[in-house]
């Protein structure tokens, strides 16, 4: 990954310092520097992180949902990422003009501030953002980013050789954080070697659906301390096989990421071993029907059966005191974030199942299971 960052230079650093200065903030109050910079050049920013799409490369040719690697050039405000971290990506969808934000793992090796990164994304049928990124985005387009987040990371130096065996077990697009860690180990290690024994065990639907197939084949063939094991189709994870590959697996630092079924099998196998680190891809809950399911208010930890009343009324029935105003959907005082579940706007009758959506709880009823940040 080449460093095209224009911000390593002292001049650029001075520029960034100036953009973040208190004087400029005072001159641009109450909107902030970024609201002016974006008018001139979307790649200029003082606080926000945006990125320009550099290229989109298809990874798979199989019958499964298509996968593509999207190369992004972030703004100078990108603080870099540790291998295994993810980033929130916001895109303004054409037509509806709605900005949708979803999390994607950074698949490239650990980055420094301003450095290019890649995301490797599977276009799920119901995933508006992933479908857009894989199928519709074009080079030159801007996307909105958060800083890197998450703790599913390599917590030792990739550049220092150790005798600590590392084990990665992944399924489907869960390969991306492990790939970022592996790429970092090979890039930063000595002479193209990982500098410690690495076992990389991955489950994919088919050889055609295998992400990073060529790169993994090259890694498997090279003398680099890395063992690559790829399993396809009905070949499911088993403790028997794992024990054969890594006899001391329960005492080996392990990173596991993949679909719920695989993760359940791995969790059973490792019991309560503290060596296992996991990252889940949340499957959306889809219960449908009036006044069914369970409503959970995440911040307060309260949960109750859905009574069919508005979320504001249900929260109040549990003794919560959410902020509210008009109670008729006009003043937006009660707007809260629904993290998952399907809800219906009682004014419009429109149902929505988008995760991480801002809703007016005074005019919104849950349809089945639903979770709200309250």
């Amino acid at each position, binding site marked *: 990954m080449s460093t095209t960052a224009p911000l390593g230079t002292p001049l650029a650093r001075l520029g960034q310092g100036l953009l973040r200065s208190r*004087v400029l903030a*005072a*001159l641009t*109050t*109450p*909107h902030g520097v970024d*609201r*002016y910079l974006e*008018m001139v050049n979307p790649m200029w920013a003082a606080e926000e992180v945006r990125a320009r799409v550099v290229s989109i490369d298809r990874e798979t040719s199989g019958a499964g949902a298509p996968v593509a690697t999207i190369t992004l050039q972030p703004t100078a405000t990108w603080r870099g990422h540790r291998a295994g971290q993810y980033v929130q990506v*916001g895109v*303004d969808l*054409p*037509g*509806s*003009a*709605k*900005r*949708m*934000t979803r999390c994607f793992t950074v698949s490239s090796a650990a980055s420094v501030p301003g450095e290019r990164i890649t995301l490797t994304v599977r276009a799920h049928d119901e995933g508006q953002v992933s479908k857009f990124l894989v199928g519709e985005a074009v080079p030159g387009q801007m996307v909105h980013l958060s800083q890197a987040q998450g703790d599913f990371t390599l917590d030792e130096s990739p550049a220092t050789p150790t005798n600590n065996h590392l084990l990665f077990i992944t399924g489907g697009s869960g390969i991306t954080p492990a790939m970022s860690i592996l790429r970092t180990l090979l890039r930063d290690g000595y002479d193209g070697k990982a500098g410690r024994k690495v076992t990389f065990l991955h489950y994919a639907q088919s050889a055609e659906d295998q992400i990073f197939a060529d790169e993994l084949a090259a890694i498997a063939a090279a003398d680099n301390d890395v063992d690559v094991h790829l399993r396809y189709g009905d070949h499911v994870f088993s403790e028997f096989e794992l024990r054969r590959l890594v006899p001391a697996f329960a005492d080996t630092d392990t990173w596991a990421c993949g679909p719920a079924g695989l993760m359940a099998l791995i969790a059973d196998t490792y019991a309560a071993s503290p060596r296992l680190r996991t990252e889940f891809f949340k499957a959306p809950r889809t219960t449908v029907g009036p006044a069914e399911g369970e409503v959970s208010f995440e911040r307060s930890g309260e949960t109750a059966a859905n009574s069919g009343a508005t979320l504001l009324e249900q929260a109040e029935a549990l003794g919560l005191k959410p902020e509210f*105003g*008009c109670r*008729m*959907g*006009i*003043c*937006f*005082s009660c*707007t809260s974030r629904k993290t998952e579940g399907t809800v219906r706007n009682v*004014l*419009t009758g429109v149902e929505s199942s988008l995760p991480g959506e*801002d809703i007016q709880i005074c005019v919104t009823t849950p349809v089945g299971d639903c979770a709200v940040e309250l």
Partner: protein
Amino acid sequence: MSIAYENETLPADVEIDVEAVKKLTAEQLDQFGAEMDAIRQRVLADLGEADADYIRKVVKLQRGFEVAGRALFYLPPAWPLAVAALSVSKIIENMEIGHNVMHGQYDWMGDPGLNSRMYDWDNVCPGEQWKYSHNYIHHTFTNIVGKDRDIGYGILRMDEDQKWHPYYLGNPVYAFLLMVFFEWGVAMHDLEVENLVAGKRSISENKELHAGIMRKVRRQAVKDYLLFPALTGPLFPLTFAGNAVANLVRNVWAFNIIFCGHFPAGVATFSEEECENESRGHWYYRQLLGSANITGGKLFHLMSGNLSHQIEHHLFPDLPARRYPEISHEVQEICERYGLGYNTGPLGKQLFSVAKKICKMALPPRQPAEQASH
């Protein structure tokens, strides 16, 4: 309900027909409400790229005027131009952008820069506080005497049903001062000074609000009266004066547009009893009869933040304001069918009507004996 028509002095050409504001039956109100809901739903379903492009274009235009205004202060002969550009910038920012964005009209876009929870406008009133008194109190309890503090803003007597007091002899003077210092009046509105004086509110309740106002005032003052003037070096006094004039122009313009929204003759006020347990239909009905429009061209609508369509704004406060002109045809057609008045007129006529009311309300009611017998 009381109708502020002027029996004796009613000119022949006034279109307010007392019969037109007659009570509808509960059933008619429900039908009327359903027709309004239908308009709302249709527009909501149609929101998309055109609305997003429009508001982004307006923001770009406003930023252009702002930067041009600030820059032209470096050319002393261009001082009037600089003031004009900055005035236009502040007017558009406060009205078509600030007011409307903070109403949540563009929340559906998911753009944090155009979100009611994040946006703050370029004047001394903290957006957070304004949203409470405006979006909630004023838009929910519109024109209910005793509940809507926007009837006279706690300073003026603007309705027959506000009890007269010798203090109100100063009505025209207070109105003039409010016009000149409008942004300060808006900022102080939430402190409910009139309730403090009346002993209905304690100073301690204002502590937090007061701190918020002072923070915003400090930032606005540092920007307009210290930093930007200082940046022009020896032209400090000219820039200082220019910024003050731009703020004054915005104050005068905003005051005049806003006073035409609810105070022209023919606008109805309501009592708390009339609005107890009111239906959605009655709420729409009250919004319609409690508001007045101003006729004008496209530029005028932009510069008034489309508050020239105050009626449509009060019926649908959360729909993007650029939709009001198209909606107004339907609203007028519905009003005709239900025999309801639709108060509109050119700026001059509405302003004259408001000025007359301000003066008339300064004096005690004409039939004090009859008033006392109520």
